[in-house]
C-alpha cells in the first residue's frame, strides 16, 4: 500500500504494519506478539542479514518510501523505535 506523505501516521500504526512485514522473517512466533518500541529486531527477533534486506524492502513498499541500506547500522536499525523513526523521517522529509 502506498501512503501519501502529507497524512501523519501514528507510531503505533507504523509498528503494527511493520510487525506484519516482520512476521515471516522471525522464527520465534511468541516474540512477534510482544513487539513494541523497545523490541530489538536483532537480539529479540533474531533477524539475520537476509531478513534485514527483506524487511527494508517490505517497509519501502508498504510505506512508499526509499530507505538507503547504507544509512543503516546495527545500532540505529536494531531498535523498533529507531526503525519507526527512520520511516517517519522518510515519510515526512518532503513536508
Amino acid at each position: 500500500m502506498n501512503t501519501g506523505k502529507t497524512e501523519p501516521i501514528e507510531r503505533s500504526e507504523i509498528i503494527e504494519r511493520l510487525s506484519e512485514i516482520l512476521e515471516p522473517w522471525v522464527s520465534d512466533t511468541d516474540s512477534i506478539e510482544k513487539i513494541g518500541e523497545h523490541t530489538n529486531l536483532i537480539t529479540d527477533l533474531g533477524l539475520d542479514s537476509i531478513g534485514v534486506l527483506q524487511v527494508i524492502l517490505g517497509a519501502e513498499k508498504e510505506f512508499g518510501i526509499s530507505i538507503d541500506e547504507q544509512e543503516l547500522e546495527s545500532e540505529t536499525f536494531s531498535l523498533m523505535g529507531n526503525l519507526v523513526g527512520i520511516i517517519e523521517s522518510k515519510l515526512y522529509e518532503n513536508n
Partner: protein
Amino acid sequence: MRIIDLLTRSAAARPKTTAIVDRDFKLSYGRMFEAVETLASRLTAAGCKSGVRVAIALGNSAEYLVSFFAISAAGGTIVGLSARMTPSEVARLVERAGVSIVITSKAYAKRLADSLDTAGSITMLLVQYETGGKLDIEAAASGPPRRIDERNCDVALMVPTSGTTGRPKIVMLTDNQLISNLAVYRLLMGFGSRNVVYCALSFHHIYCICAQILTHVSLADTFVVSDTPFFIKDFAKSVERRRLTATAFVPYMAILLADFAEPQQFDLKSLKYVTLSGARTPVSIYRTLTNKYPWVNFINTYGMSEAGSRISIASPFPSRFPPGSVGSPMPGVNVKIVDDEGTDLPFEHRGQILVKSSGVMKGYYQQADLTAQTIVDGWLRTGDLGKLDEKGNLYILGRTKDVIITGGENVCPQEIEESLIEHPGISEAAVVGQKDRLLGEVPVAFIVANSRGEKLSQADIVKFCKAKLSSHKIPRFIRFVRKLPKLGSSKIDRNALRKMAGNSHSLMS
C-alpha cells in the same frame, strides 16, 4: 596434523596476542587455549572421543570458536551448524548426522526443546562467557554417545550442504583434507603478520572455516567476531575502530561496499585483503571496488564444501588476473573442464569443472551412491560450469545443478518444494531462482493449490515455511498456477519456470 594443532602452536607461540574480540570482550590465545582444554575435558567426560559427533548450534561468537577447537581436542567430529538455522533444521541435521552431543546457548536450547528429542539420547552442553571472562559450561541433558561409526572415525568436520529435506547432503572432511593447502593459501594471499580479521560470514560455512578460521588461527591473528546482520556502515566503523586488515565477503557484501557512498567519512586505510567467494562477484562491482579502494587487495577465490580447502585463487598480484576469473588453481589442485560425456575440453570451451586434489572430501555421509556419482576416478564433479583460458585462469559460468545461490548461501530447491507440499492445501510446488541484484538470486515458488488451498494467500505460505526453513530459503515471490510445466510426464521444466519467474510480483506489494 589435526585442526587443534593449529591452535596449540599459535597459543604456545603467542599466548598474549588477542585471539578474539567479541563485542567488547577480548580473549588472548593463551586464554582461548585454556577454555578449549576445559571444554574438551567436559566433552571427554560426556563420552566424546574419536568417531563421536558433536554439533555446534551457536551464532558467531567466541563460544563458537572455542567449541570448534575443543571438539577437535577431544578427538570428536565437528558438525558445524548455526543458531541462524531454525530449530527444526538443526534437529533434522542432528538426527541425520548421528550427533551425540550438541553445544549451544541457553537461549537457543529453549527454542530447540520442542524440536529435538533429548530424552536419553543427546547430551546438551550450554556454553557462555561470563562477564569476568570465565567460560560457563552447563549440562542441560545427557545421554550415552551413539554407537561409533568405525568407518568414519577419521572425519574431523561434517558440513551440511544443500540437499533435500529427507536426505540433506553432509560432506565429510578429514583433518588432512581441511589443512592440505592451508600453507600454500597463506603464502599466495601474502598475509603478513598481526592481521585483524573481520568475520561477517557464518562460522559454519566452509569458506569461513578454511579462508578465515583455520588460516588466521594458524597465523595467531585476531578475529573480530560479529553476529549481527551485515550493515556496511557497521563494517566501516569496525575497520576504523579495530584497524581491521582482512575480511571475507560473499557478493552481496561486496556490492554494498561498492555502493557505499560515504567511504571518506571513515578511515579504511588499514584494510588490505578482501576475499570474494560464495558466488561470482559481478565484474562491474569488482572494477568499482578496485577503483574506489585502490589500497585493498580484492581477491576472487573459488571453493566448495566437497573440495575441502580452496580450489583457486586470484593472488598474488590480483590485478594481474582478469577480473571475471576466480584465479588459477592452487598448487596441488588439478582442474579440468569436461563435456556432458566426460571428455576433456580445450581452453576457452565451456563445460563442467572437475577438481582433483588432496582436499577433496572423503564423501557424503551415508550416501555412497551419490559419492560415487560425484567423485569419479578421483575427480570431483563440482556441478559448476566454467572454462579455463590459455593462461590457466578459471572462470565460473553457471551451474549444471538446480542449486540456487542466494546471498552466498546454497539452497536446494527440492528442500523448499518438500516443505511446501507438506501443506494440506498444496498439491504441487516447484521452486527456481530469480535474479536479484544484491543477493544474486532469490527463491521463487510456483504453487498448484488443491480444493483445500483455494483461499491460500502468499502470507499463509510464507508463515507455513518459516517454521521449517531458514529465512534465506523462504520464497521471496510466490505464484499460484493451475499446473506446472513438465518435461515428459513428471519432470518439472525448470527452464520454463525460470522464464516465468521474470514476471513474478513481489510478496511485499
